[in-house]
């Protein structure tokens, strides 16, 4: 993570920033249609009508791009990460405000445009808090230091005798105080202190951190005023709906534009360039229909009668590919982890257990399908998009249009879900090309079918695990072979998981087995592969936790005891040597700072089994299953309670989740993420799967790409956050990986059916 903000010149605040929180500035509705609507009274994060220029010259204190103190005392804090449901806007700015000593009631939070001035804005990898916790504190502390200096100067006292809290600077010895607003202009004239001269507060002075904070955007979310990407409307804008190829690499041979143009409201039909491998963030190709409204565009698209050349991926078939992956993990792959001599230990073992696990492709399916709006005119481009990665959106648009990045502005709206889908800039490529070609603002609206059939899919995978047990049943050898087309295949000719890919739950797996071997096996991609919430951890955690449960049952012992035994004694692994690997990216953090801490993993297991009354796990009509996993530098254990409903369907009726993520800022949002992870994981375990036939996706909408509904989600979810002063770990993703194996293990305990392939609906009624 960078410390870039310390390098950023003063007075740049707001210059590159869009005050239109959620991306919409008042005045975008071209007609006066809203004038008499009750919606004229909108609450929530509405932008002021003032222009950026006006704001950028606003007087006051702005020591860096993230914070501004106005003479009226209003503190403006920039949230530079995207809000997609994780509550980042209710978390990160709080750190800055706490360091500053501001009252949250007098803080305005605005959303940053995409601009390298903010450092890394990629909202991905559960990285916002864990990556820049110290940086954000320093941002606030710098502004506080300057306010204190201004007050001390006025009172002619030492700054050390002053303190800042409650939106004032206080000189206790003389009982004098000055409001932040009163000091803003003077403080703004001072030199920005060097980082070394800025002291962070002791943690106990951070007033809001660690307390449940109100949801900043709650009111806007419940009154319809929150502006998502789909909600942007520009004057003269056309809506585009695109007929994309159903098979990756297929090309348009011919189509009938006249039939589409005959639909009232349809204005243009534009062919998009066919992409070439590697596909990265290129458009998907196909034919776009641009119309005055979405309905007309959809009708126009339906009339196109396109004939496609299917290309080389038309043979991709999930049933066949499952066999290909099985064959791949049946023989040795590239060895990426080696402790002791696993092969020798396996050949000498008293008993060898082996199992193979499969997880299908998954689609992100955020409730808001991909959508974006762009205006390209006079050598500039302005984009409004629900993007997780505004700088990638900017760079992609610049590249596609042949413009310098400075000429491209990306306004970040609220995201109606992201889960990794909206990190990809393919829909940005589409919208800027169409806006340029059409010469008017264009909105690209993906339908749900587009979304399910043209995603950057979570990778399909096979895992083959082999354990050697000694005469006492103790695991003495562990071999893990994993095969999945890696994300790298979307960006280059890659057909085997890399060292970096296997860090997610294979290389960093903290098991206390004397002989360990992990191998990456070949798998070719036939669709675009992308990262989906918790990524490869999904299938690695599923296979590892299922397999340990299988070992326990093979030994006739308590799965919890066997899990703890396989993990081994509480210990902290700080070197790659101990792990038996060459290197570990460790989610971008040094192993020294964030070691593989088996004690913490054991801790969440012990706590979750206590809370769920694990000893009582075999009650009439329900059974408990357990799983635990370290990912994104956090430790999570889950117990799922599975029942068979009167209609014969398997369901999860209750779940317990314990998370040790080190320091947390906003425990209520952490709790919400854990609840959401249980339900996201329930969908993966019981319902969801993308399959291919003839190169095309067989599913199309929520009818056949099933997600958990309210009556199918656990009735009760119990969350516990381990109190901790450790450096913060991730939150958005680490709750997901242990959920599916906990459910599968509970299913076995209840039914005796061992499910080694997800979703469980393939084997049992769900």
């Amino acid at each position: 993570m960078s410390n870039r903000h310390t390098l950023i010149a003063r007075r740049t605040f707001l210059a590159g920033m869009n005050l239109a929180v959620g991306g919409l500035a008042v005045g975008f509705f071209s007609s006066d249609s809203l004038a008499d609507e009750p919606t004229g009274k909108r609450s929530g994060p509405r932008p002021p009508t003032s222009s950026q220029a006006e704001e950028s010259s606003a007087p006051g204190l702005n020591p860096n791009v993230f914070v501004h103190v106005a003479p009226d005392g209003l503190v403006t804090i920039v949230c530079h990460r995207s809000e997609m449901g994780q509550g980042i806007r209710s978390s990160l700015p709080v750190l800055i405000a706490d360091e500053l000593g501001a009252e949250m009631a007098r803080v305005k939070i605005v959303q940053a445009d995409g601009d390298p001035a903010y450092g890394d804005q990629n909202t991905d990898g559960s990285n916002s808090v864990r990556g820049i916790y110290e940086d954000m504190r320093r941002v606030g502390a710098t502004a506080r230091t300057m306010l204190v200096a201004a007050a001390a100067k006025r009172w002619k006292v030492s700054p050390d005798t002053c303190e800042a809290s409650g939106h004032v600077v206080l000189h206790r010895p003389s009982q004098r105080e000055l409001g932040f607003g009163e000091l803003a202009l003077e403080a703004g004239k001072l030199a920005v202190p060097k980082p070394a001269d800025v002291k962070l507060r002791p943690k106990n002075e951070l007033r809001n951190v660690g307390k449940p904070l109100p949801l900043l955007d709650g009111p806007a979310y419940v009154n319809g005023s929150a502006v998502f990407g789909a909600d942007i409307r520009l004057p003269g804008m056309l809506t585009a709906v695109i007929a994309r190829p159903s098979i990756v690499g297929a090309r348009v041979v011919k189509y009938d534009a006249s039939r589409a143009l005959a639909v009232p409201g349809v204005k243009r039909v534009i062919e998009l360039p066919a992409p070439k491998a590697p596909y990265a963030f290129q458009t998907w190709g196909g034919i776009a229909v641009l119309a005055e409204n979405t309905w007309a565009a959809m009708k126009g698209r339906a009339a196109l009668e396109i004939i496609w050349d299917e290309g080389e991926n038309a043979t991709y078939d999930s049933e066949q590919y499952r066999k290909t992956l099985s064959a791949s993990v049946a023989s040795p792959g590239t060895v990426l982890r080696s402790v002791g001599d696993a092969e020798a230990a396996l050949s000498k073992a008293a008993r060898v257990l082996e199992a193979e696990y499969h997880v299908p492709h998954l689609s992100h399916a955020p409730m808001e399908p991909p959508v974006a709006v762009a205006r390209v005119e006079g050598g500039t481009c302005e984009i409004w998009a629900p993007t997780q990665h505004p700088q990638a959106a900017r760079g992609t648009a610049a590249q596609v249009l042949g413009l310098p990045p400075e000429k491209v502005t990306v306004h970040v709206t609220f995201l109606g879900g992201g889960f990794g889908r909206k990190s990809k800039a393919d829909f940005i490529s589409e919208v800027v090309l169409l806006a340029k070609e059409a010469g008017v603002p264009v909105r690209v609206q993906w339908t749900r079918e587009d979304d399910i059939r043209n995603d950057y899919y979570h990778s399909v995978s096979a895992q083959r695990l082999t354990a050697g047990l000694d005469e006492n049943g103790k695991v003495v050898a562990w071999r893990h072979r994993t095969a999945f087309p890696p994300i790298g295949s979307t960006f280059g000719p890659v057909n085997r998981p890399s060292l970096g890919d296997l860090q997610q739950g294979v290389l960093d797996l903290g098991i206390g087995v004397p002989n360990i071997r992990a191998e990456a096996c070949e798998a070719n991609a036939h669709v675009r592969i992308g990262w989906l919430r918790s990524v490869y951890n999904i299938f690695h955690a599923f296979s590892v936790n299922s397999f340990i449960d299988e070992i326990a049952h093979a030994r006739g012992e308590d799965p919890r005891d066997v899990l703890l035994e396989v993990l081994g004694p509480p210990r902290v692994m700080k070197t790659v040597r101990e792990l038996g690997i060459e290197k570990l990216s460790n989610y971008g953090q040094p192993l020294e700072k964030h070691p593989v801490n088996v004690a913490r993993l054991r801790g969440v297991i012990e706590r979750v089994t206590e809370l769920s009354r694990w000893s009582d796990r075999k009650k009439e009509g329900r059974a408990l299953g357990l799983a635990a996993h370290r990912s994104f530098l956090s430790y999570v254990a889950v117990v799922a309670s599975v029942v068979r409903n009167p209609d014969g369907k398997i369901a999860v009726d209750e779940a317990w989740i314990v998370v040790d993520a080190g320091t947390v800022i906003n425990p209520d949002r952490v709790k919400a993420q854990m609840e959401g992870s249980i339900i996201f994981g329930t969908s993966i375990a019981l319902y969801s799967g993308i399959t291919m036939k003839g190169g095309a996706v067989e599913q199309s909408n929520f009818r056949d790409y099933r997600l958990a509904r309210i009556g199918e989600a656990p009735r009760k979810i119990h969350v516990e956050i381990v109190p901790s002063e450790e450096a913060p770990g991730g939150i958005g993703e680490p709750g997901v990986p242990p959920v599916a194996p906990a459910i599968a293990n509970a299913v076995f305990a209840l039914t005796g059916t061992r499910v080694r392939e997800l979703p469980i609906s393939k084997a049992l009624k769900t």
Partner: protein
Amino acid sequence: MSIRVRINGVEKELDVDPEMPLLWALRDVLGLTGTKYGCGQALCGACTVHLDGQTVRACVTPIRRADGHSVTTIEGLSPDGNHPLQRAWVDLGVPQCGFCQAGQLMCAAALLEKKPKPTDAEIDHSLAGNLCRCGTYTRIRAAVKKAAGMSGE
């Protein structure tokens, strides 16, 4: 064809394709973007509005069906965002990404009209058509009960 429809208490006259789904008439013609598109096939509930007080999925309801009728959207659920459900939603921190919540609220509001003290099963049944990918269901259930003045939940 001209369609006359009362939207959130205001008479509107629209000159649109009578087959245009109510959803797109609201979003694209009237600029009422609080009602969301999520699936287009009445599978996710994000587009739920009230037509003469009954919930309908606006994505599969042709605008002609609303001709001469009254439609309430999330923007018209309450004058100030103060419907007991909206208050409970904020108090309990229900929304994550927020995209599905308008539909959830419109369904829940119709439920409370009919059943002021709904059971868990009634809540589940009534909201079965409303997907939330973020997974806010347990808080949704709690917030419906809170709005209904049901304690102990």
